[in-house]
């Protein structure tokens, strides 16, 4: 039988993969995708616990997180488009105007 632990490990795995993507990739779009992965991992946790506790609130939070993900994706992609128009690139480490 499947216990909550399984779900926790699954979400941990997804989370780590997402982190690796965020930290190592150069392409901003893929970084955003990795962030989506992380959010999903969190969702799995929430749902698993809501199942464990037998209350629906975890799922409600998951819904909120999905909402956030939507907003974040919209804004992030908007930024990417604007940036791409100016700099003709989508590489994260060329976005270092902060450095100066």
């Amino acid at each position: 039988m499947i216990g909550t632990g399984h779900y926790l490990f699954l979400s941990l795995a997804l989370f780590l993969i997402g982190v690796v993507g965020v930290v190592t990739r150069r392409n901003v779009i893929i970084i955003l995708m990795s962030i989506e992965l992380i959010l999903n991992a969190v969702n799995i946790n929430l749902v698993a616990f809501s199942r464990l506790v037998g209350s629906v609130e975890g799922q409600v939070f998951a819904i909120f997180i999905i909402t956030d993900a939507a907003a974040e994706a919209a804004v992030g992609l908007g930024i990417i488009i604007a940036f791409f128009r100016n700099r003709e690139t989508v590489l994260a480490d060329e976005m270092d105007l902060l450095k100066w």
Partner: protein
Amino acid sequence: MRPSEYFLAHIWLVPLFPLAASAVMLLFGRKLSNSLVSVFCVGSVALSLVYGFGAIFQLIARPAAERVVEFALFNWIPAGPMHTTSGHLVNFNAQWGFLFDPLTAVMVGIVTGVGFLIHVYSIGYMAHEGGYYRFFGYLNLFMFSMLTLVLANNILLMFVGWEGVGLCSYLLIGFYFLKKSAADAGKKAFIVNRIGDAGFLLGIFLLVGTLGTLNFSELRGAIVAGHFAVGDAALTAIALLLFAGATGKSAQIPLYVWLPDAMEGPTPVSALIHAATMVTAGVYMLVRTNAIFAMAPRALAVVAVVGAVTAIFAATMGVLQNDIKRVLAYSTISQLGYMFLACGVGAFSAGIFHLLTHAFFKGLLFLGAGSVIHAVSGEQDMQKMGALGGKIRTTYLTMLAATLAIAGIPPLAGFFSKDEILARAFRANHALWLVGWLTAGMTAFYMFRLLFLTFHGTSRVPHEVERHIHESPSNMTVPLIILAVLSIVGGWIGIGGRFERFLEPVTQSAPASTAGETPEAALMIASVAIALGGIGLAWFLYIKRTELPDKIAASFGGLYRLVYNKYYVDQIYDAMFVNRTKDLGLTLGAFDRTFIDGLGVDGTGWLTRATSVISIFWDKWIIDGIVNLVANVVRVLSIPVRWLQTGRVSSYAGFIVLGVLVLLGFYLHAAGYTLANLRP
């Protein structure tokens, strides 16, 4: 003041309308359309015309004894108590006040009436000129200043208007400021006027010091109170200084030189400012302050002589001019000479009378000349005109009327006033009369010379111009007609001394004309005769035997050249004053450059530079040294931080992960977990 007398109560509005209009023009005029501009300005002048004439009629409606209205809007310069030279303690206070009496009434009538006509005329004349709104703005500003001048109840406020009209005259002479000659003429007028005004100002100061008041209505009282004897030195000095101002403004010898050049301005300006109104300000001022002049017979004598000499001198110059407007300019000067002659012999009312009629016909003459110039598309040289009489009939007829008037042919306006003056002059001094008489003849001669050269004889107009010779539009001809009517009938108000009696309250202090019979009729006949003689001569020379003038010119070569070049007066002035002034300026400039700049400023600069070497050293090595030291320390310290701050998203994310790692480890440790717990 009676409640019924609305206009007298609101006389102070008269100058305000043009002021408002000019303010609007000079602020927003650029954005307004021409039609709107004309509506504004002419409308404002029309309003002041209505108010002015309303006031005049209500003044006349009063009984002769009470024809004086004076009131102040506010205290302008309340200087407080002071001692006059005669030791009186007076409380000097210059108000912003208005005095409305018969003399002012006449002036207001002239200014608003002729001003309005000329405004209407300008709508047509300036239609195709640039700076339409600018022109009308200046013109309205002039109206304001002139009305302030004539309505002022004290010399100081009068002086404000006086300077105002001077400014407007300068602006309008230089209206075409891109034309060098125009700009120069403006400057010339302004500077020459300054000379006169300097005298005027001194006169005012002296007046304040002597009488302690500037209000016209108080002058007489102050003189009486001061127990001044006739011919008192101070009063004479004041009178002469005021007259100096008058010579400047009214173009009398020796300060007349600016008026001919002032013809560079647009013709309506010449008509309004340099014929009808402004140049007569001097005469007005004299009459206004006649209380003083009456106490200074020597000064009066000077005035009379200057006037007479100016009259004949200008007349001679006018004889040989070819520029139509310049002829009129010299004629104006000589007519002004007449007025001063009148004042000089104590016939103030006659002077004002001539001023009135002169305003009519000289304004008309200028407008007519403008109409002619308009017709021959800008040509001003009479050599290039002729036989225009048939083509521009209205202009011709009106100008004929004006010419007859100025020549003193009865029963036109000029006849009455001039005859009055000559009569009084004869009574005072036969020599003066003789001069006036000759001048009358010359006037008739050169005015008809102008008329014949312009309208009669053979046409000398170039063909391409001749094709589009045309009568001016109605808004130009109508004023001509009105003025023509006035210059025909305008003189009749003087018949039987009615005009003189009207002015009594102002000129009462005039010395009673020395008794003794004067052959009025004989003088009349004589002046008419010489006028006719002049006309005949002009006809003979310029219609009958057109070749003669050149012959005569040839035979009198030297004299001719002398007169033709206006007695070289301008050159003499240049040589005597202008260039000397320039030299002085140059010298001073050289002094400034060498001593002030060279030694003072540059020397100081050099000294400073020299001394600054030390502070340079200090700054460079000590101050900057400290700064750089601090900066270097910071830089060295910042190396590890800079290594952390890559400015890259990913690395920051990496640091976040690191932080989570550490925190989680810390919590586990705090919770007391160790690797031992990993054992199942």
